[in-house]
């Protein structure tokens, strides 16, 4: 699966969990750009993304992401 496809699926998870149809993610998007992306929702996003891609992150990875692109890179590394 290429990274643009991963980003598209991740975008769908964000829309579902944050309940906002208008979210459009790019690699550079951070929590500062998305109002509802707070610590509670971050945890829900992590678990929903794990389920969607049937992968598991470790806690270091989760804390290291600075933007969506880094999250997509982590997913890509686990899938490929």
């Amino acid at each position, binding site marked *: 699966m290429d990274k643009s496809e991963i980003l598209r699926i991740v975008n769908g998870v964000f829309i579902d969990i944050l309940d906002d149809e208008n979210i459009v993610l790019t690699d550079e998007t951070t*929590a*500062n750009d998305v109002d509802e*992306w*707070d*610590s*509670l929702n*971050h*945890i*829900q996003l*992590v*678990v929903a993304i*794990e389920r969607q891609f049937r992968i*598991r992150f470790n*806690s270091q990875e*989760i*804390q290291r992401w600075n933007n969506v692109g880094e999250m997509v890179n982590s997913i890509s590394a686990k899938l490929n």
Partner: protein
Amino acid sequence: MQQQLGYIYDRIETLSPMHSKKLKKNMAFFDDRYLELADTFFNKYTRILQAQNKTLDYSIDCYLQMIADVNSETIEFLRTGKYTSSTFDEVNKRVYARPETMEYYMHGLIMSQFLWRHHYQMFNYFITTLPQYVNVIKHYLEVGVGHGFYLSKVLEVLNPESSITAVDISETSIALAKSFINDSRIDFILKDIFEFDNHKKYDFITLGEVLEHVEDPLKLLLKLNALLSPDGVLFFTTPTNAPAIDHIYLFNNVDEIRLLIKAAGFQIESEMAILSEDVSPEKAEKYKVAVLYGAFIKKSNPTN
């Protein structure tokens, strides 16, 4: 906003913007009473830190370390539906017997008393309800004294002639509580509550967020039932769905707690359940968001 509080919020925003968003949502619920209490509290706390050559920055780091722990425990909880530990031995090795872990954990918890809306609201419920029982309290017992904040406020409410006993299994907790409260009226006892018996009956017992730390909460409530005088009152709090490094007993919902109260021979005088996040009840259920439950309960059969 008061100076210390403003500094804490700004520093957390710098260090953890995502967590800061959650805290800012809490702030919408805080009133003048909160600002006054929090200000007094943080001034006192800062003086205690200074006496130990520590700063407020140290405590903020402790708090964020605790939040990081809670976040990883929550992710695991959402994956498995269980807490990561289920026995006292496990959490004893992991937390209680490790002074460095206890140290940051206790300071993190102290900060949460005024940074988490549900902690503040539950405290408010307790301290505004307690006065209706004050005239019948000759002997007061607190089990699991933690950082001592509840007890410090109880001292302001109780009659001066009431006896006050505080039992805790942790030396770190007792030391911290003593630094908060310098009052000779309190008899601090370092002991496992299951081994505590001074042949006295208590008119009021407080048990703040302890049940989730024991393997058999029914056994603990039965023990406290035995320590209460016939018309005595127990105030306790415990959360549902609240993963933490030292939580071992999972309450899935408030009804499970109510069933436990009944099974231990108590009836509810009054109760309060507070969601730990500012979300709709539907979202709270879907996401298993923690609820902090507190209740004033009495023996259902006072002759026992």
